[in-house]
């Protein structure tokens, strides 16, 4: 599984969304992606990619697309 597939799988499993909906997905646009869902997602991505997000990046992680950009800061190319 490549990094994009791992990234997508985390979103789909934790937020229960379809792959087709990922590109437009934003924080608080669906009920599952509230502040608690956000912590689940961040923790899962940290496990998957063996990284630790800074607090500012956890807060800035506002969408599926933005997340890709932030993860790149930690040396992970999606």
């Amino acid at each position, binding site marked *: 599984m490549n990094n994009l597939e791992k990234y997508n799988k985390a979103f789909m499993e934790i937020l229960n969304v379809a792959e087709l909906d990922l590109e437009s997905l934003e924080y608080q646009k669906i009920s599952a992606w509230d*502040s*608690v*869902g*956000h*912590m*689940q997602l*961040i*923790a*899962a991505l*940290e496990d998957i990619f063996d990284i*630790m997000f800074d*607090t500012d990046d*956890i*807060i800035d992680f506002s969408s599926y697309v933005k997340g890709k950009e932030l993860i790149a800061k930690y040396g992970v190319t999606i």
Partner: protein
Amino acid sequence: MAGYFELSLLRLYIFPSDYLCSNSYLLSANGHAVVIDPCNNKLFFQKIKQLKIDYCFLTHEHYDHINGVNELKTNFKCPVICSKICADRIENPRLNMAHYYPAFIKMQKQEPVTDQKMIIPDYCCKADNVFEYEVLINWQGHQFFLRETPGHSPGSSSILLDKKILFSGDTLVIGQKTYTRFPGGNPEDFQQYTLSFLRSLPKETVVYPGHYGSFLLKDAIL
């Protein structure tokens, strides 16, 4: 605001924390005391100065319930007791959620955390004694029954005092179903292991939860 109740020869004090209103409990009898979920709260630490702290019990590993453990251990030398799983997780800032709390609180309250000293993102602490499944502890003529109640978190326990009072941590909070969505939370564990225990308790059991006020078990959403 701190609360105070007298239960026969036992006194129960409640100290809600500034952030997320996590409750620290202090039970005192005959100059001795037991602490449950110590938070960094000045009033709490002022109050316990006058007492001999015999035990500190933890209901679960989350940062908002353990952030006073290190200060308590440094100044009062009391043993910290929790489940084995909880003990493993309080040693890791990711597993005890300290790493996520600054962001979580900001996102919950939609405002910046103004007093950064209140939150330590790399906070961790250690337990002194652990149990698996359940344990009975006698103290000053009273009996504590600590029982693992996973679901909200893997290391969650509930603490039953004299078969009448339940310190539930976040396993039970009034007016809402138990939150099992935090990292490590598991609704199946809650269903399989915890619900049967809670349903086995008398309906008149008084529940002192990890957040907000007390209630009767019969009023909980199970």
